[in-house]
């Protein structure tokens, strides 16, 4: 059935209908309108009619199932396309939020640094930082050793 995916709908539809209706016509000719010049070929027409009819019904069923799958695939593809667009929109919103937040954090950082410069004398006036305090702070900033990635 997967090979049908490569054939255009109209060709499949035309072929299936041709076989199906040819089967109906041949069956009618063989079983119902069994007269005149057809009489010597009655059995042949009947067999041919039944074969075409069975094949036609089979193909029609297969065609309908194929079309149902194609419709479902198209529906799913449309949903996925919509989801992709939605996903990108969400990304834009999140990106904007993060950038705004980070910008805000940096603004606060700049403001605080200005404040530190302004109050430098007060801050440094009564305190000298011992070397040990610097070492401890650096260790804390370094984080845990032997991290696993």
């Amino acid at each position, binding site marked *: 059935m997967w090979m049908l995916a490569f054939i255009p709908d109209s060709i499949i539809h035309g072929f299936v209908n041709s076989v199906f209706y040819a089967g109906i016509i041949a069956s009618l000719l063989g079983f119902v309108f069994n007269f005149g010049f057809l009489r010597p070929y009655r059995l042949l027409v009947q067999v041919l009619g039944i074969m075409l009819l069975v094949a036609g019904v089979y193909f029609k069923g297969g065609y309908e199932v194929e079309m149902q799958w194609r419709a479902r695939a198209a529906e799913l593809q449309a949903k996925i396309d919509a989801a992709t667009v939605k996903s990108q929109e969400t990304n834009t919103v999140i990106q904007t939020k993060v950038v705004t937040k980070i910008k805000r954090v940096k603004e606060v950082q700049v403001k605080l640094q200005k404040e530190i410069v302004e109050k430098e004398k007060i801050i440094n006036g009564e305190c000298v930082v011992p070397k040990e305090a*610097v070492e401890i702070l650096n260790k804390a*900033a370094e984080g845990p050793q032997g991290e696993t990635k």
Partner: protein
Amino acid sequence: MRYLILVLVLLLTGCSTLVPVKAPFPDAPSELAIDCPQLKQLPPDTSKLTDVVVSVTENYSTYYECQAKHEAWGIWYKEQRRIYEEVK
């Protein structure tokens, strides 16, 4: 016999199911892909308290930047999951 095998193989293709629809994995915002930086350390000869305060405030800022990214990852995951579940 060869023709029979060929016919059987062709008939077996009817058992295969074609799945032409693929849902691509969503991309995350580029800002979130940037790793959080290392915290700033002080030069060993630091003696001024202001240098310590500057370093500490910078590290706080780094933390808040990372927190913003971490929160955004959470939101991104929840939203993408919701969108994915709507497709089913």
